[in-house]
């Protein structure tokens, strides 16, 4: 990781380009801009950015295709930006390997939060296993396979633990039902997304303070789940 993170923005509309550039540069990062899908892939190869922001509604091609082409050779985090009402597009992009998404219109805050999570994951991947996860009174120590709520140990079923483990490894990022299903149950049952819902429901009952108003495991309707970002130690 370089001292100043570099961000590649693949976006065709000048006002959005301007907004994204000023925001990201204002937070001390270096920005490259590509206006087309083709240019975006070339720039990604040349600049080796730390994070890619990709608008799915590009004029010259399918954003999904860009995700697939980048993923063929790069593990750089990709955050896709989709228009409201195009839920299927973003879920497809996530399943194809994008790391997170934003729905237009979004606020500066949301964008920065996503970029922060992406950069942190990149750093974690470089450093090996992360430290212990802590959020809202919950502690998950993956090395010791230990889960605690307010200091008391919680017993999870193997499925619940595997789901939580996967979420902790990707804390702050959205995980689609399909991704969780593939990780926990393997690649043969990818349409049975309700398995995930049932077990997440059980998991919440154990880890959340108020399972009716979950804070740690947030639902993103039609997409999947997002584990709360860990509190900084």
């Amino acid at each position: 990781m370089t001292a100043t993170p570099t961000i590649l923005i693949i976006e065709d509309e000048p006002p959005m380009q301007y907004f994204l550039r000023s925001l990201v540069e204002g937070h001390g990062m270096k920005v490259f801009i590509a206006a087309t899908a083709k240019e975006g892939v070339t720039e990604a190869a040349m600049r080796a950015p730390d994070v890619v922001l990709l608008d799915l509604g590009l004029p010259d091609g399918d954003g999904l295709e860009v995700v697939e082409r980048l993923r063929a050779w790069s593990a750089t985090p990709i955050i896709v930006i989709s228009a409201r009402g195009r839920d299927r597009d973003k879920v497809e992009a996530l399943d194809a390997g994008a790391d997170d998404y934003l729905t237009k219109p979004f606020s500066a805050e949301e964008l920065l939060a996503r970029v922060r999570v992406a950069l942190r994951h990149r750093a974690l991947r470089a450093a090996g296993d992360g430290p212990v996860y802590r959020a809202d009174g919950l502690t998950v120590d993956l090395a010791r396979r230990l889960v605690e709520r307010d200091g008391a140990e919680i017993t999870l079923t193997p499925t619940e633990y595997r789901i939580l483990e996967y979420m902790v490894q990707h804390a702050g990022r959205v995980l689609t039902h399909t991704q969780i299903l593939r990780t926990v149950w393997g690649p043969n049952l990818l349409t049975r997304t309700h398995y995930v819902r049932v077990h997440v429901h059980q998991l919440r009952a154990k880890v959340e303070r108020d399972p009716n108003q979950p804070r740690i495991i947030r639902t993103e309707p039609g997409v999947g789940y997002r584990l709360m970002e860990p509190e900084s130690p």
Partner: protein
Amino acid sequence: MPADRPDPDRLLAAVARDAARPAGKLKIFLGAAAGVGKTVAMLDAAREARAAGRDVVVGIVETHGRHETQARLAGLEVLPRRASERVDVPPELDLDGIIARRPEIVLVDELAHTNAPGSRHAKRWQDVDELLEAGIDVWTALNIQHLESLNDVVARLTGVEVHETVPDHVFDRAHAVEVIDLTPQDLLARLETGKVYAPDQARRAMAGFFRVGNLIALRQLALRRAAMRVGEQLDEHRDREALPEVWAAAEHLLVAVGPSPHSARLVRVASRIARSLDVPWHAVTIHPVHAGTAGDSQRALEHLRLAEQLGAETTSLTADNVATALVGLARRVNATMIVLGAPTRRSWRDALRGSLIDEVLREAADIDVHVVPSQAGAAQAAPRQPMAAQDESRGLAVPRARDLAAALVTASIATGVAGAAGDLISESDVIMLYVAAVTVTAFRARLAAGLLSAVLCSLAFNFFFTQPRFTLYVDDSRYWLTFVLLGGVGALVSVLASRLREHAAAVVRREAQTEDLFRLTRQLSRCATPDEVARVGADYLHRLAGGPTAVWLPGEPDLRLVASVGTMPEDEVERVVARWTSLHGVSAGAGTQTLVGAKGQYHPLAPPGTTGGVVGFVPPPAASPSALERRHALETVVTLLREFLDRMRLEADAETSRVTAETERVRSTLLSSVSHDLRTPLATITGAATTLLDEQASLVPGTRRELLVRISSEAHRLERLLDNVLNMTRLDSGRVDPSLEWELPDEIVGAAIARVSAMGGGRLIRTAAHGRPVLARLDPVLVEQLVVNFLENAVVHAPSAEPIEVAVYEDGQDVVIEVADRGPGVPENDATALFEKFVRGKASGGTGLGLAICRAIATVHGGRVWARPRPGGGAVFGVALPKGGPDGQRALEFAEVLEQTETR
């Protein structure tokens, strides 16, 4: 049959009706829809009759709480109704009471009514039947949509299915039908002023059934059906009075065409006359039983086809006396004028018996006969057919072995019998035996066999019974006459017999075709889609043509084969011809005049000038004597198919334009309604942004930030408005295809609460305790939107100190989500109006679309929404969604799934 006698079948029908007719007479007050004033008109008539001293009583009259009806009951004797033993069953017509009372006339309202269970008859019209049978006159009221035969038409026109129907024979039996006519505008006005329904019902009725379009259509149906009834009565009257004279009520023109090229001109002349007189016309070709060739048939058929194109109805008949058949048909179709062509040449038969024109003139005493002179030179165009071709059909060709055998056998039997009888019988008896033999042979077999038998019998008689015996020598010249007469008898009998046979065969064929056509029409009228029509048509044509048949309908990009029976020849030529037919709307292929190189014959299924479907079949060989009839039948079927498809297309067009108009209306209301709502946040954003841009403005510290917060929050509001508008248009247009997943409604409610807490500024919302978790098949994004809209609605309306409670629970096959607030509440009985588009609450700054979207989303899921007052103040908004989704799959159990999917 002599033309001056009425058709016996029709007479019989009239007699049967008379015998069955009860002494009572039925009078029907017919209306296009409820509320046109049938009951009022009936009661007015009753009061008049009573004033005239007639014994009128009211059997049953429904006032529906209408004052104008109630007032008219005064002064009339109202018979008590028959109360049921059961409390929950409404009282019905007291049949026995009325029969015992024996009034002259009884009023029985609402003929289509279904009686309460336990009544004597299931339907009220059966009660009426019994009253009529008992000799009591019945006056009743009926709406046109209740007539059985119009049931499907009404359903298709108005989209409302009527279940209570009255069979047509009841209607047809009516002695008098009085149409109570009211323009749709007047009727709607009556509805609005609450004269038909109580006011709250009226609004619903107007939205559903009482649309102007529906009312116009129903009114037209009522008037048309009544007019038809009058026409039938006229026919009936004529039959009963056995009046052979033609009634000139509706003029009609009949033109007789034949194979002569002159006929084409004749058809055009007839068409011009018909048009100038503005009367319908009819073209007929009469195919003589014992003459004519395939070529003749073909040409005659072409002339009929021409007539059809010019707007005539067409018929082809087989008859042995052309004049009689022509005049008979003229009487059947009520023709007031017959158009004939002058003969192109006079034959010896004309000199002997008078020409066809003379015969027609003689028989058609009271029908005008119009003779169109031929044009010089036209006659040459008709080549005489070689004799052999004509003779073939009559069996005069070379005798076949079967004829010879038949002749030999009968001659031998006659000889044997005569020989065995020996001297017991006289010579004249022997001759009679031979005559019998010749007659039998001629009757059973063809003409050749008859003649052969005559020759054989003459020879046998000569050989065995004339002096000198056992020689062919005749010494008495008187016997020569015997031989000649025997031959004559044989020829005559066989000619007569073969005519009779052909005639009978023609009648049977015709009857079968009529029957078949009738069945086809019925089948076609049951079809709901063009594809079904195509399938029924292909099947039928296959049976008729006896060969492969296929129907194509327009598709993308080319014709689409919809139905085929057998294997149609398929190569480039056939495809081109079919496509040509579709494009040009003209028949083509084998047996037509266009693109004759094809093996199949193709007919268009849409009017010329429009690209439509095509029907194709391999035509039957033209040589058989019934070819003309068969071809005519084929064309009739094609025409029928075309008409059915046309009607469907028109209906579909009407439906599309109705939907388009409705969508257009919603869209324009939507636009006008939201443009205001969109401008308010835009104005704030523009104002705040320009203030910030203004370098001269000296802003108090903090104002800068405040303005930016405003811009941000108004932009957010704008986004929500736009979301609502877009959602509504998408849901309204029916383009929403929910992506259904097995979801936990609990989880979706949780997400919705999270979203609204962020928007609503930390308002406390808590989820009420509930039972076990539920799985339901639904679209998570749509249902989240629904719950968010409920919550926002509650946040806006309820006082900020009070909690808003959300509950999720199972209710039978449904999962229910309820949002309860402590706001101003909702009306007790009619909260459904809240879910209408553009209905806004007092406190809301919204578009009035939020709850309408909720209802639309529930509908997409096969569920429903409601709003009810909450005990202790406030309102509860709820939605029930079927757990298995809109297609009702078996619901999954949470616990079961949990257990089965635990990994090790």
